[in-house]
Structures are given as C-alpha cells and as structure tokens.
C-alpha cells in the first residue's frame, strides 16, 4: 500500500519539513531508511494538565455511584501513555473501561464471593470459636496472599497487552502461578531472615516478570543481580533497627515508670525517658527516608540496566535526591488533594522515569514483527481491584 522505500533526497525533504514545523520539539535522527538506529524516548506533555480532568472525573464517579471509575482510570492511562514518545511517536493504550468493569465483576463473582461464602458458611455451621474456623482463617490469609501475587502478574499482562507502539503490542507470557508461588515463599523466607532477603527477592521477582515480557516478536531479558542494592538496604535496615530499638527502650522505660507511679506527671515522664533513645528515633527516621530514596533510585537504575529488549539495552539516571523529592512531592499532592490528584502524581512519576531513560544499541525496527496478541481479560479485574501500575 505504502511505498516501502524512499530515496534519501525525498526522505530528507520530508524531514526538513517536519523540522521546520515542529521547531520546539527534538529533531528526529536523520537516518536513512531501512537501517538500524538508536531509539529515542522522550516525554511530551504536562502531568498537571490532568488536574481538571481529575476533578471532573471525581464528580462523574460520584454521580454514577462509582461505576465511571473504570473509564476514568482508562482515560488517565491513555493520556499518560500518549505523553510517552518513542521516536516521537506516542505509546498507545487500547484497554477499555468495559474490560476493567467486566474483569472486576468476574473477580468478585468467581473469587471473592465464593471465598466469602466459605468463610460465612463455616462460621455459621461451626461457630466463630471453632478451631477449624480459626485454622481456616489462617489458611485463608495465605490463599489470599497467593492470589494477590498471581493477580499482580496477570494485571501486568493485561496492561502490557493493551500497550502498543506503532501498532505492535507488548505482552507477558505465562507464569502467573509460578510468580505467585515464588512471591509467597520468598515473603516467608524474607520474614525469617529479618528482611535481609528483600533485595534479592525484589530482583528475583523482577527477573521473572521481565523475562516473560515481549514486544511483538522481540523477547525481553533481565541480566542483573541484587548485589548493588545491599549497601543502601543495609543503611535502611540499620536505621530502622536502631529506631525500633530506641522506641522499645522508650516504651520499656514508660512501662517501668507506670508500674511505680500509675499517673506520672509530664516532667517525670520526660525525666524517665532515655534522651539518647529519643535522639536516636529522631535521627533514624530521616536516615531511613534517605536510605529508602537511595535504595529506590538504585533499584530503578538496576532494573533499567538489566533489561534488554532484543539488541537494545536501557539505562536510567535516577538519583536518591530526585527520587526523594518526587516521592515527597507526590505524597503532598495526594495528601492535599485527598487522593483526587493521584493520576497527576502517577504521571509525574512516569515523566521522571521517561525523561531519565535512554536506550543503547541499535534497533532494526524492520525485524520487529507483530507477535502473539493477548486479547483475554485475565488480569483486568485484578488491575482494577488493586490499582496496579507497571511503572
């Protein structure tokens, strides 16, 4: 239908026209057609442009008793995806609010309602204090946790399968159950190791997820390990441990005081509380926050660097300071808006990632073909129920 090749002079003429009309945008690379070229990713838009839409959608959600929420969520994602430009062309989100609603209703009817019936029926039949009911509740917790992790994987599949660039869809292969199981047992193991397995777990799960991803006919790979995360993690761990120890010391001192004097005066309380412990708590909290930002930035950089899309590599230039600012400012945005401006905060985070991301290597887009397309609704309900984002 369209001429597959143009000679270089004609192509250059079109490029010049584009450059003159879009002077404020980045100039696309002038590469001859058909040959590999580095991919360029950029951001085009202002997250704050979603502000009016957030308030309008809030109103629509209220008057429709919540039903509009599924379409509002879809609209936000479409607009955010549109702001992400690869080779100056936007990503496309093809999911619909109807899919989210149907998925959510199916989740409710086939998962939540049966579970509720089991819990309700057992309490009715056996009484609330029956040992089987108590054991069942304990077992149910793990079932729900497993289902949540499976849901996270499937939600990623849904979002990726509805994300396209130049008409080519992303996707996620099978592996939800394995992901759910791995998430569950590594959670337990992390608890047993006082949290020290957390960075390893994070990277292991990310590897599972990334290795199952594809863009058209090109699979993703994850080539990275968790070693670089342990230094910032240790920082967080020690700060948190010190803070908790100090809090226990303060609680212990107060307990001893109340045993001697059930109604101590304020001055007595101040005298009894170990001042070192108080200073430790006050110092440990900001240290923990700094450590978290440092860890988050390193994690993001690691994930980007470890991810390979065919011959393409990627890198992210996140820093602890900027992550901290982004996190705090997003908290403030959501806090002052009572959560209404959450999409603005999400768009700011996506902008942060996109503007610091770069690709390396060459991509021959001629060889990237349309792959298997996943049209199923699996994961739609979970995405809606847990408000999962893939960035």
């Amino acid at each position: 239908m369209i001429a597959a090749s143009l000679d270089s002079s004609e192509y250059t003429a079109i490029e010049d026209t584009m450059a003159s009309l879009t002077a404020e945008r980045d100039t696309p690379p002038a590469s001859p057609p058909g040959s590999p070229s580095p991919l360029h990713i950029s951001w085009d838009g202002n997250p704050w442009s979603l502000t009016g839409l957030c308030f309008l959608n809030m109103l629509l959600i209220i008057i429709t008793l919540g039903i509009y929420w599924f379409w509002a969520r879809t609209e936000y994602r479409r607009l955010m995806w549109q702001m992400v430009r690869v080779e100056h062309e936007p990503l496309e989100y093809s999911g619909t609010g109807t899919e989210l609603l149907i998925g959510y209703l199916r989740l409710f009817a086939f998962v939540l309602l049966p579970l509720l019936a089991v819990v309700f029926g057992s309490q009715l039949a056996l009484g609330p204090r029956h040992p089987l009911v108590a054991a069942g509740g304990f077992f149910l917790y793990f079932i729900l946790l497993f289902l949540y992790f499976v849901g996270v994987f499937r939600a990623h599949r849904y979002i990726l399968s509805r994300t396209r660039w130049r008409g080519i869809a992303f996707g996620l292969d099978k592996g939800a159950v394995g992901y759910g199981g791995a998430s569950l047992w590594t959670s337990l193991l992390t608890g047993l190791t006082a949290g020290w397995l957390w960075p390893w777990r994070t990277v292991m799960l990310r590897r599972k997820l990334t290795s199952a991803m594809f863009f058209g006919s090109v699979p993703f790979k994850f080539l990275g390990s968790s070693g670089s995360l342990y230094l910032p993690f240790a920082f967080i761990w020690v700060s948190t441990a010190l803070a908790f120890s100090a809090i226990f010391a303060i609680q212990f001192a107060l307990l001893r005081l109340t045993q001697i004097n059930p109604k101590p005066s304020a001055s007595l309380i101040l005298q009894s509380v170990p001042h070192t412990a108080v200073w430790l708590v006050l110092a440990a909290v900001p240290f923990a926050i700094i450590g978290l930002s440092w860890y988050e930035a390193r994690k993001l950089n690691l994930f980007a660097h470890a991810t390979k899309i065919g011959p393409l590599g990627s890198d992210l230039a996140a820093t602890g300071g900027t992550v901290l600012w982004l996190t705090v400012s997003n908290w403030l945005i959501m806090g002052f808006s009572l959560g209404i401006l959450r999409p603005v905060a999400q768009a700011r985070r996506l902008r942060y990632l996109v503007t610091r991301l770069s690709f390396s290597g060459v991509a021959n887009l001629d060889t990237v073909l349309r792959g298997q397309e996943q049209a199923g609704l699996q994961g739609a309900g979970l995405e809606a129920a847990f408000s999962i984002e893939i960035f």
Partner: protein
Amino acid sequence: MSALSFEGRWNDGERAKSTPVIVAFEAEGLAVKDADSVQAAFWAFEDLSPAAPIRSTSADALLRNPKASRATLFVQGPGVGALLAERAPQTTTSASRFKILRRSLVFTLAVGILAGVLLFGHFSASKAVANWIPQSTADEIGARSIGMFGPIAPECENQQGNIALQRILDRLQTGGDYGRPFKLHVARASVPNAFALPGRHIVLLSTLVKQARSAEEVAGVIAHEMGHGLEKDPEALFVRSVSMQALVQLLTGESGNQTALTFGAILLQLRYSRDAERLADAHAIEILKAARIDAKPTAEFFLRNASGGADDESSMSYLSTHPSSLERAKLFTSQPDYPGESVLSEKEWADAQAICEAVEAKPPKAEQKKVGKPKTRKA
C-alpha cells in the same frame, strides 16, 4: 505543503517500522500520500478512532481505522486537534466521555431503581438468608450467645423468680399458635434492657424486671421480644454481623476469634430498624390480646421510661434503640379495650422482682462461718 496537509507517519501494524507520509484533510476524510504524493490510503472522518481522545488544542493525533485492520496513522502539526474536532467529533474527549457517561448513568439509574424497589418493597437480604438457617443451628447460636454473657451478666437462678416469669411466658405462648416455644432467661445487669437472640431465646435484664410496676408491663416487653423472634429478626441480625465479620476476615485474614467481637456484644450493639421495632410492637399487641393480658400497662411503661430520659439515643436503655416512646405508648393505648386477666399473683410478682436479689442477699459459705458466734476462751 497546503494548509490542510500535515506530516505524518504510517504504520501497518505488522512491523515496528513506520513510514513518513503526508496527510491531507479533504472533504470526506484523510488522504494518506507517500512522498510522491501518490495516495496510498483514504480514511473517512466517520471511521476515525483515536488512540487517545483528542482535544482541540492537540498538536498531534494517533489515529486508527477499524476498517483498516491494524494500521495506525500518526498526524502532527499545529491545528491538527482543532481540525479533527471539527470534522471527526467522535474522536474528541467530550464525545467519548459523553458516550460513556450516558451508559454509566443508565446503569446507575437501573441500580437506583432496583435499590428503591428493594427498599420500599421491604426486602431484606439478611432476612432471606436467615430463613435458611436450620432451627438447630439457630438454637445453638442463641445458646452460645447467652453463654458469652456469663462474665458480664450472669443468669439469675432463683427458682421462684424463674417460675414466676416463666408463667408470664407460658401465658403469652398459650394464647396462640406461635410455633416452637420461646425460652426465657434473666440475667443480672444494671441496665434495664431486654433482647431476643436466635433460636427464640429471650433475655430480660434484672433491672428492667425490678423497675417494672406490674407483671403486665413485663409481659408487654416479653411479647415485643416474641415479635422479633416470630419475624426472625435476631437471625437476620446474626447474618449481618457474621457477614461483616467474614468480610473483615477475608480482607485482613484475621481469625474471627477476638474477645472484643463476641457475638453477644455484636448483637447488643447492632440495632434493628425502626420498622422492625414497629412490627414487633404490632405482634406484641396481638400476643397480649390473645393471652387476655391488658396492653395499657405496657404503654405506661413506655411513658414512664420516656419521662425518665430513656428516649436518649445514646443510652443503653431498653428504649434507646426503639421508636419514640410516645408513639409506642399511643399505639398500645389506642387498642380497643378487652377483658384482661391478671398474669401473676402478688406473691409471684414479688418473687419475679426478687429473681436476682436472692442471689445477692445470700453471702458465701466461707463468709457465713466467719460471721458466726465469737469464740469464747476456755476457763
């Protein structure tokens, strides 16, 4: 390039490579032309579908055409959004939002109508489920609830008092056919209250019996609780409380075995609707009449407790969860007169009122020994 032509990129959806094109806005649609100005595709405005809703201020647009399979067309240039908004309004933000909103409002209206039908049709999902609870299960739940009260409101076991109050219940039950018999319990508590539990258990708190001025007043209260039992209100309340607890357990994974949430406490704290209370009063009037017990003393009981401030919604008194005492008193006094017979004799009534006092007055045996004759020294 003409004023209505823009640069664009065409993608066939089969490969990730896109081709630069010129997009001309013609009368009926978009003409996609290659570098030689040869038209390679034509998309009618009415067929256009945006990848994201377009605003009139948009400087580019990613378009699809459902009739053109997977191909996408990316058009960019100042004024693109305005032109598309004018010639393909279905691609705009407001058009897509209106379409969705219309459907959402229809759905909301349907839900509202259904809710209204259920509400004004007096349909109760919990009561529908309660009707399915086996009798033995309901009895067991009621008995367990009473067992839970033990530490806070022990049952009074004065035999004479129990016999007397049971006579009232027997009199009420023999007046008509009310199915399975009710079971009466009296518990010691400082709050004047009474309530029905699943399995046709009725609990009177001792202070209510003590404050009543006649057996007929107590009969009115018991008859009201029988009304709740006949309507299966306690079972419906149980279904609601268990559902809430099950939901919490589902969401938090916590076992329902928490001391603060015993079923008795839940049942005490949860309230019947005012309509349920009115219905129980209506039953009470019929039960009293069938048992030939005067309903007027019950009205006096309401009025007396109302003037004592028991209409305060925040209090735990018997009347705090019920419709206005004045309204209830009017209902009972408005009933036509009928010949009534005394429920208990004076002695029986005195026994009934002392049902819990006899337990308090009697000191433990260890104390009795201490209080006995002082020892005398042997010469």
